[in-house]
């Protein structure tokens, strides 16, 4: 039921040429090289260590691996991860 509704919304968004992140409530992830990582529309952090950060998303979670990771700016709609980002895994 949930997935059928989602599929329909996605098709509608494609038809009307509306950006999908607005319609689908998806996170927008922006990377600046491997120095900065900005995640908008998140659902909070699950775990934080300097070598690994897990962030809860609308669907599943985002696992960021790297070194000297810090949370530069933490707000309700966005997280800014600074440091050296080594890998990015999207767990659904």
């Amino acid at each position: 039921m949930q997935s059928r509704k989602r599929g329909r919304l996605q098709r509608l968004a494609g038809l009307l040429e509306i950006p999908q992140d607005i319609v689908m409530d998806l996170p927008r992830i922006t990377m600046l090289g491997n120095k900065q990582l900005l995640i908008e529309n998140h659902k909070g952090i699950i775990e934080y260590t300097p070598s690994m950060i897990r962030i809860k998303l609308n669907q599943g979670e985002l696992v960021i691996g790297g070194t000297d990771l810090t949370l530069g700016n933490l707000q309700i709609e966005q997280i800014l991860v600074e440091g050296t980002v080594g890998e990015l895994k999207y767990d659904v």
Partner: protein
Amino acid sequence: MMSKLANYLQGAVRIRVSGMMPEKLINLCVTQHISLWGITKHNDDLLVWMKLGDFFTIREMVRKSRTRITIVRRYGFPFTAKRLKRRKVLLIGPLIFFLALNILSSYVWFVDVMGLKNLPDSRIKEIAFQQGLKPGALKNDINTKQIENEILITLPEVAWIGVNFVGTRAVIEIVEKTVPKQEDKSPANLIAAKDGVITEIIVLAGQTMLKKGDTVKKGDLLIQGIAPEAPEATVKPPEAPVPEQPIRAKGIVKARVWYESYGETELATAVHEPTGRQQLGVVLKIGSNEFVVKKPDLTQFALYEQEAIHKKLPLWRNSGLIVESSIDVYHELDTSWLEITLEQARDAARTKALDQLQRLIPQTAHILSRNVEVIKTTEPNLVRVKVTIEAEEDIVQSVMISQ
């Protein structure tokens, strides 16, 4: 993005979150729209920056997340202000400093007079003092225009004056009038200052008996201070001889003047140099008694130089009994002869003689010839040189006529 200035004004704290799940507190804060930044992990604790205002609202969340928080660092104006409030003197100090600076710089501390040539600087200062321009006067009370006018009126020698302040220094700048020199009008004769043969004679005032080619001795009368006879006076019958009116004689008398001088130089000169060997003689003086501590053995030294060192205790320690030690250092000397060639000796002698003459010949003199001759001497070690200079110069000298 957080602006740095806003953070400073509002104040921020870095807190350490410890407990089982420190992330839980972070998530709770985020849902409450509390902005956090600079989050790092230290061991198992999280270090988080947050605004000071937000810090007072998280108490409930801390309890809910079962964590404990401690403040690690404080940043911003609220903390600085609090610290300053506790240390009031720190605030009063700069205040007093600026106040003192302001008060002290509003007084005149020094009065300087610049640009004076003939006028004494005490006279200017005296007038300025009477007008209130003195060390210790308030700068605002001083009317510079009035002082300038006052000095201009009282001192006619002043052409221009400016009074201004440079910091706490009052500078009086003065430009003096250049007054033409008062000419001496008293009657005088011109006499010869030196022996010589006259080459040129120009009489501007007075009478002369001399002509070109005459030889004069030092002190001879050159131009007499008598008014020249008026031509019409000769026409008149000499009924009563008019007493001659003495005037100030003026004129130029150029003459050839000879100068001579001798210079001597030795071919070999003795030079004494210390050999490095030395002997010490130490004498200790207590009160009026003298004790010879060490006697120098001077028999080995053919030639020596003595250097005396006196050592005294400072007066405050030496008040009762005078204790003094004198150390004599005897340096042995070695004699060596420095020899120079005949030419070098002659040149040195000539320079000596010329130096002597240079002092005698005035700057304005025109040198006609210079003659150097070596004189034979009986001593073999000596070179003697005679220098003769012939110069043409003005030899007049004013002498007052005594009445």
